[in-house]
């Protein structure tokens, strides 16, 4: 198939481009700056918020994997709405105009949850009213709109990978690794909450499978959470990532209530000072790190006919090798 990947420069975007190319698809990417995917990938530079650019990029494509999004714990609602909701609308309009037949919309498990402990939960519908924070709310609206376009001409599926990590990750891994090297890692409570994560190659394979199987009734019109299916405690995850990156395991603990308050204060300070980077902690992140969230993967694995090929231990070994 001829596939357009939006947001092809990030950790998951790059892995997805590699996976699709390896499967023999002809891949075009759309992102704001060059990704350097190599000669077999055509790169279009542009913003998903620009409807004209998106329409041009979709022209002649059979399928779209829509990854481009604003991912941040802080920021103004208008920005999230413009990029995550507006961008998705542009993609949907472009898909219709260009006669694209398949769309895999990349979403997030946070679209369906309000911060309660998630213990083996299935993929439930997105809920903008309950989703916590601007990011999750904008992604919830976008996912609902995307899935509402599933129809005869266009098959749409939403895939929600949870906490994607791997070598080269500047978000989760990068921040833990940096603080571990500085000896500044702190655990909230005892770090006993079980959390699902997804090694990046597994998430990319799941997206490629979703694209292949997008027209099947068990995939189209559905939202599916994707994880490694190997939940680990926050303490173990942070400790192992710190180890793999050559830093020190966290030794200090702060109670959850302190962490949440600190996060809320930092958010306000950042907002007032107009800083563009992310604060070291937000109330939302404090909650996330103190609360179990892991998922029932049976439906996803059956629908996508997919299983993670890289286990957590193997993923950590690869991460360690990337730092060596």
């Amino acid at each position: 198939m001829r596939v357009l990947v939006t947001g092809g420069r990030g950790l998951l975007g790059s892995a997805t481009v590699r996976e699709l190319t390896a499967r023999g698809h002809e891949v075009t990417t759309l992102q704001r700056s060059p990704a350097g995917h190599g000669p077999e990938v055509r790169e279009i530079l542009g913003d998903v918020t620009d409807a004209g650019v998106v329409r041009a990029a979709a022209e002649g494509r059979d399928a779209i994997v829509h990854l481009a999004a604003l991912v941040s714990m802080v920021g103004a609602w208008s920005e999230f709405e413009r990029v995550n909701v507006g961008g998705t609308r542009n993609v949907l309009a472009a898909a219709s105009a260009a006669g694209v037949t398949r769309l895999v919309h990349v979403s997030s498990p946070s679209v369906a949850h309000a911060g309660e402990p998630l213990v083996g939960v299935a993929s439930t519908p997105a809920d903008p009213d309950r989703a916590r924070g601007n990011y999750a709310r904008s992604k919830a609206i976008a996912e609902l709109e995307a899935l509402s376009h599933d129809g005869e001409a266009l098959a749409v599926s939403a895939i929600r990978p949870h906490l994607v990590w791997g070598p080269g990750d500047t978000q989760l891994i990068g921040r833990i690794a940096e603080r571990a090297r500085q000896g500044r890692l702190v655990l909230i409570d005892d770090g006993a909450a079980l959390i699902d994560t997804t090694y990046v190659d597994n998430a990319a394979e799941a997206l490629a499978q979703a694209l292949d199987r997008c027209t099947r009734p068990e995939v189209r019109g559905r939202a599916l959470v994707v994880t490694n299916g190997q939940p680990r405690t926050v303490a173990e995850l942070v400790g192992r990532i710190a180890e793999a990156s050559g830093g020190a395991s966290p030794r200090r603990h702060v109670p959850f209530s302190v962490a949440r308050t600190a996060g809320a204060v930092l958010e306000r300070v950042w907002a007032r000072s107009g800083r563009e980077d992310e604060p070291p902690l937000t109330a939302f992140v404090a909650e996330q790190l103190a609360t179990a969230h892991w998922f029932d993967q049976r439906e996803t694995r059956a629908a996508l006919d997919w299983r993670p090929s890289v286990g957590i231990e193997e993923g950590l070994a690869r991460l360690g090798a990337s730092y060596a």
Partner: protein
Amino acid sequence: MTARDADGVSRTWHVLDTHPDGSVDDVELTLLCVHGNPTWSYLWRRLLAAAPSGIRVVAVDHLDMGYSERTDTVRRLGQRIEDLSVVTAALGVDGPVVTVAHDWGGPISLGWALAHREQLRGIVLLNTAVHQPEGAPAPSIIRLARSAPVLQANTVTTPAFLRGTTLLSGTSLPRSVADAFAAPYATADRRSAIGAFVSDIPLEPGHPSASTLDAIAADIGGLDVPALLLWGPGDPVFSDRYLNDLIGRLPQADVHRYEGARHLVIEDAPSLVDDLLTWVADLRAGRTSAEPSPHSEGEPLWSALDERALDDPSGIALAEPTTDGAWRKVTWDLLHRNVDLLARGLAARGVHRGDRVAVLITPGADLLAVVYACWRIGASVVVTDAGLGVRGIHRALRGAAPQHVIAIPRGMTLVRALRLPGRRIPVSELPAIARLGSTMSSLPQAPGPDDEAVVAFTSGSTGPAKGVVYRHRQVQRTRDALREHYAITPRDSLVAAFAPWAVLGPALGIASAIPDMDVTSPRTLTARAFAASVRVVDGTLVWASPAAFTSILGSAGGMSDDDLAALGSLRLVLGAGAPVSPALLHGMARLCPRAEVRTPYGMTEVLPVADVTIGEIDGAGLGPGVLVGHPLEGVDVRISELDSSGTAVGPLSDRTGVLGEVVVRAPHQKDRYDRLWATERASSRETGWHRTGDVGELDDAGRLWIGGRLAHVITTADGPVAPVRIEQAVELLPEVEQAACVGVGPMGTQHLVVVVVSAKAAGGLADLGLTERVRRAAGADVAAVLVRNDLPVDVRHRSKIDRTAISRWAGDMLAGRS
């Protein structure tokens, strides 16, 4: 629905009907549901919803009740029976019927049943009564409600009686359900019949409804259809006394008591509707319980006692410690005479064949004499042990409903305090009873092999303890299985440190010694006391629990050379009651160098099933659980494979390497669970077999491995996992003393968590190093490793790990902030 009542007056009834449009061609059976007071047909809603095809469910609101017409008449029991007949005629219910009734609906439904015998296929009754048992006061709550001023205020003027009834549910009813029960009774007008209904309870002779009710009570004995009694034992109105009365009238009845359920048993017991429909389905299919197996008749339980008394009258039958540290020895002749005299005396005191006798006596001469005397009369012995706890004994004895209780002072205090049923006979009266027996010229006729012999109780480590019924032939075969498998001859003698089996010595014709210990606590058995009990009878066999082994080995340092030498007479050491660790078996093997150390596998329902030596365990190494060895001769073992939800759905199979529920069939297995029809039905869903609730695998050598309890199976997305294999592998780590493998998360998508006891680690989350070592040893994707100071165990044996509690604890911890 409108029809003319027996007086020719047109009346309107409110009826729930699964076939309201009259399309009844496919109906093979109708369940006629009759509510009591002050409920209405809403009571039966889940039965209507769950009814399978071919079954019509009709639930009628009595006139003046529910949403039926308010008639301004006083309708007595007889007229209500006629009303019900009018309704069934008008609804065209003319085919086969099973009546289903609750509370005062019971007599009405039975009245209908007696009037429609040709249609009647079965009777189902839930917490009801047809008769006020002699000598028993009416339930005080009803007597109070019946007193005139209270009656009016309670039942009509205010909704107290109505709301009170929904409060008689054991679980607090959801508000919406309580409101629905009250919905048709919103005003005093609409409630008036509730008062009339209560007034119509014939508590006193001469009451206008008394003769009708008495006739029903007398006549239902003639109904030869199957009957099912479903009971909430916590009902302050219709207590177990009424259940026992009904069982006397309907001896064919299947009975299930839902422990913890109260008056509104159908609301309190979530499985009741399914159980009822299973019973109805069995009725339609003509399913019968197991035929008595065709084995030849065994020797009576007392025959070896008779023989030894003839052959070796002055030989020792029993040695028990006295309070001053000496031994009291009972000869075969004396034991035989005591049994004979007590049997005559107890019979003279009104203990009859078929009666149940609860025996609360510590192991020793009195216990043996009473048990064998009861067996000789044909009375069944109800055996509880202190390990059940006061609450457990209370439930057990209420459930078994013994006619008599024979108890030591401590037991009698308990019986009084708990106001347990049964005529009370203190052990201090036994000499007088024996003297009375000496004046009786003959023994009662001996019972047959099908007479009930024992009600024993499971340990209750997974739910309330269950009563297990054995008939004489099943106890005989247990005796014979032990005798044959362990080659027991009269030259053997038994050190009985395991309470349930302390009574089998005389049946086996071998001497028994009771060690000096608190039998309620196996941990009180010291090595010296153990050696003394071996010495006093030149013991060749020991039967003890792992907790007793632990205690013996822990105090072995205090043994003298004489003590150690005494252990040389032992030829066989058996550990039972709970899984025995190889370390304990090795310890006992070192202590008793001439004895073979074995551990039988079995349960209260079948013992033994299989048996293994310490040598075989060592030779086999790690496997899919605990090796329990080859099934005994005559015992069949099969596996019922688990599905992804951990339910044992597979057909009985002898395939090897398949994880499933262990299902056994043995001549010496239980007859049934007591008053737990649905539990029995589930455990013997393959007729003649017993589902053990254990999971395991068979190997190529035909040996059985146990992987844990079915209730403790972890259902991962990759299939069910039994905990014991992982625990054994993890316990090989030097820093791990004990391990429990449990699941967290919802059924079918659980993850493994290993909880270890380790002196080298702090409680809570294990550190990265220990986590990795445990995960590697487990050979499975363990999500987390937690450390505790100890693991919760059962009260009775102190060795069955309570994985359910651990799983809950781990789940809470790993959920993080709640």
